[in-house]
């Protein structure tokens, strides 16, 4: 009992400094998260258009790309981006964070593109035809009519995928990018403390909670119409 209280009091004692250190690591996690999100959201749309192209070779090129990216682990993709160029062309290795970001952006664009495609294909043909007979161009039909309806429909799956991205940032430690898990793990070897690793979960949990609320809010905002 006394031992237990002793442990607790040590944890409380260390809590402020551990929190600050983990927060530093989580800052890196959030950085990976935000940059990946900002770049892969639009890139995903480009891949969607590619994989929905009427030109067969383009369509199959993009489909194969999506197959490879979705068919292999993200961890492996990070390793390939980081070590691949050096092994293949004797090139200088990319900065670690850059390698992670490239792998993440490519990976998440592929996943987003499939969500977009599902959304776009769920819009009834009549919406396109209505736009067309009213003299709208294809671009206008897409941006003025279809896109908004697609966004409404894909909010739930996108929320899912974006929350997964938060936690996937932990994979960056495979090439020693100092995100929160890596920082927390260091306490094991340096100070023989394992609780900071468990504690790191709270950071993810809090952040994902905020995202969940945000997506709930967006969903509610878009619910002003049915259809």
């Amino acid at each position, binding site marked *: 009992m006394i031992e237990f209280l002793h442990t607790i009091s040590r944890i409380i004692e260390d809590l402020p400094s551990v929190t600050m250190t983990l927060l530093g690591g989580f800052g890196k996690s959030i950085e990976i998260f935000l940059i990946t999100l900002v770049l892969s959201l639009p890139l995903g749309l480009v891949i969607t258009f590619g994989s929905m192209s009427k030109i067969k070779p383009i369509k199959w090129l993009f489909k194969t790309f999506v197959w490879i990216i979705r068919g292999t682990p993200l961890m492996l993709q990070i390793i390939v981006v980081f070590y691949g160029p050096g092994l293949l062309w004797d090139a200088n290795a990319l900065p670690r964070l850059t390698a992670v970001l490239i792998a993440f952006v490519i990976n998440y664009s592929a996943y987003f593109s499939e969500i977009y495609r599902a959304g776009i294909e769920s819009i*009834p043909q*009549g*919406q396109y*035809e*209505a*736009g*067309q*007979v*009213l*003299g*709208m*161009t*294809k671009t*206008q039909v897409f941006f*003025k*009519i279809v896109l*908004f*309806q697609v966004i*409404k429909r894909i909010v739930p799956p996108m929320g899912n995928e974006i929350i997964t991205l938060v936690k996937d940032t932990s994979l960056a430690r495979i090439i020693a990018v100092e995100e929160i898990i890596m920082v927390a793990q260091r306490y094991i070897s340096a100070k023989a403390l394992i609780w900071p690793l468990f504690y790191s979960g709270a950071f993810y949990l809090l952040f994902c909670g905020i995202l969940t609320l945000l997506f709930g809010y967006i969903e509610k905002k878009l619910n*002003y*119409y*049915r*259809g």
Partner: protein
Amino acid sequence: MAILEIKNLKKSFGKVEVLKDVSFEMNEGEVVSIIGSSGSGKTTFLRCINFLETADSGKIVCDGDVIFDGKSVKKMNAKEIREKQMKFGFVFQQFNLFPQYDVLTNVTLAPKLLAKERPDFKKNKAAIYAEIEAKALDLLSQAGLSDKINNYPCQLSGGQQQRVAIVRALALEPKIMLFDEPTSALDPELTNEVLKIIKFLADDDMTMIIVTHEMQFAKNISDRIVFMDKGVVAETGTPEEIFGNPKTERLQHFLSNTKL
């Protein structure tokens, strides 16, 4: 002179020949109803007229312009097709209103986008938009929808939605209105409010082609009736001729199976 002249129109989907050599002519201000059983090619015919489908061969002349010629090798680009489509207003069976926009925006969206192509748009944007909105409001009030302008389509009945769809098409001032079974998706009690508007347009000398299953309505409103069967115009004539004295066996058979 005929405002719309269609010669030898043909259209197949894969191996199925949906239109086999359809010819048709109509004058300005005329109201023509197309009747016939499902699968007779009525809807495809209507969709070929304004390029929702592209016919395989034949010729369409509208208001003196050759808008389609199956013989000419030149493929029309999107812009040309768009210009030609603008001669027609199209009303769908399923309304196809834009669910995210309110009634007024549904009507003004396309005219406002088109206005951007006007050379004086930048200078007179506010005035042009005000004019478009005033016109939309006027049309909506004529359709009895003044109190619905800020409602979303999902808040309207089917009949109200279809009336909005008709106003939306009219707002672009088409030469010819095409109706593709405008009341088929409606409950019987909502059908009349839509038919009343079409009747109002007919009295206003709007040129219209109406594909319909409402025989009584077709009889009352039309100057001429076209009976299509298996991809051809099987019989055509005034409502009195078609309903009172059907000549072909196919039409007799069709009418005997249809409630007037």
